[in-house]
């Protein structure tokens, strides 16, 4: 038995290992993680079909369609965040690992965003163009979705932690997370609308970024507290 502290792994390395583990697991069963992306694509392609296919009208609706679809698809993905780790005892092991749980959960959120948020951002240019956004608006649309999707993953982690022990936590999860996600929706859609109208979008982007920074600092701590309560 080595002395306590000998050959201990740094928190940074522990986080990286956890990221690596979750990525490897996701690669072995890609179906789970493709669902939110497919949902996003289906909703945004159905929108033009259900409305008057005039470019000008589509363009007016594009921000709403993009952001509602992004929000719902991130909610859909949230249940995957901690559910399996909670059931198989992995979260318990993380909670007694002697490492800061908030940090480990932040690592899990990063992977979750890489798998469910980033794909949305990557297909957004295609979707935005299909909805009639001019090419010059694409960087703005991308930027807003990038910041917004990170925030949604972080905020969602708190709800996912709280509903961990519930068998059918999906609806409750949506009810818990939606009120917190509404500001992201409002400023995100506003920024996207300004981008599509080719107007300066700095003001809503600043607010969006402020919410992102706030959730990056507070959400992991809240999620860790929520997970500890759920493990009791």
């Amino acid at each position, binding site marked *: 038995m*080595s002395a*306590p502290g000998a050959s201990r*792994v740094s928190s940074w390395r522990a986080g990286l290992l956890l990221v690596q*583990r979750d990525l490897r*697991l996701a690669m072995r069963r890609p179906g789970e993680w493709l669902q939110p992306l497919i949902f996003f694509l289906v909703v945004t392609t159905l929108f033009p079909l259900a409305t008057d296919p005039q470019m000008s009208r589509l363009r007016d609706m594009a921000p709403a369609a993009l952001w509602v679809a992004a929000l719902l698809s991130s909610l859909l993905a949230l249940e995957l965040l901690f559910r399996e780790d909670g059931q198989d*005892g992995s979260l318990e092991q993380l909670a*007694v690992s002697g490492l800061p749980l908030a940090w480990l959960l932040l690592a899990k959120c990063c992977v979750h965003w890489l798998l469910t948020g980033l794909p949305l951002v990557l297909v957004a240019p295609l979707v935005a163009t299909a909805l009639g956004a001019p090419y010059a608006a694409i960087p703005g649309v991308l930027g807003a979705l990038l910041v917004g999707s990170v925030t949604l993953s972080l905020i969602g982690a708190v709800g996912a932690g709280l509903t961990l022990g519930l068998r059918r936590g999906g609806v409750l999860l949506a009810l818990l997370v939606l009120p917190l996600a509404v500001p992201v929706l409002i400023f995100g859609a506003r920024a996207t609308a300004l981008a599509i109208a080719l107007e300066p979008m700095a003001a809503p982007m600043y607010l969006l970024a402020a919410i992102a920074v706030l959730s990056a600092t507070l959400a992991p701590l809240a999620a860790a507290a929520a997970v500890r309560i759920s493990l*009791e």
Partner: protein
Amino acid sequence: MMTSTMRLLEADQLHLWRGELQVLRGLSFSLDAGRCLQVTGRNGAGKTSLLRVLARLLPLESGIVSWRGSDTSKDTFAYHSELAWLGHATALKGDLTARENLLYSAGLRRAITPDAMNAALAAVGYAHSDGHLVRQMSAGQQRRVALARVLLLDSVLWLLDEPTVNLDAGGQEMFGGMLQAHLERGGLAVVATHQTLPLPASRLQALELA
């Protein structure tokens, strides 16, 4: 100083309620280095609750669990870093191999060399090739991999909840040997099991929950 090195783990007047039911009523015990506390009791007597309390997964109503003489609620990180916990759930990922599982769980806490990994897997009698995913293994083999993680964590205190579930006769014997070696190196263990532990009386301390 004398007491803090002798009595590593101490529980003082533990009270725990689960809903309407009082599970622990003023339970006290202390455990020295090199000794094992075997927790027994009928189903529902609170064996799992006690272990979860000791792991600080469950909060206490009142009472103190102290480690090396200091309250574990004060410095939980230091306490947890000397703790190996194995509950009902094995915390193994079905889509990873045994080695990957150990690397990504025990490896979060200490650097693991391939030699240490091989030694731990050999010690628990792991009998699959490297490419095998955990979900393709029998429950007994999965349990052995989970026990290999306990070995790899190299902790002073083991908290094991029904560690021999699903193990065959050979596996139970293996666990007995593993536990004895741990105690001989000065480790401590709290084990909830009804299996007779093959330990000398000087190392064994019994606790029956009513």
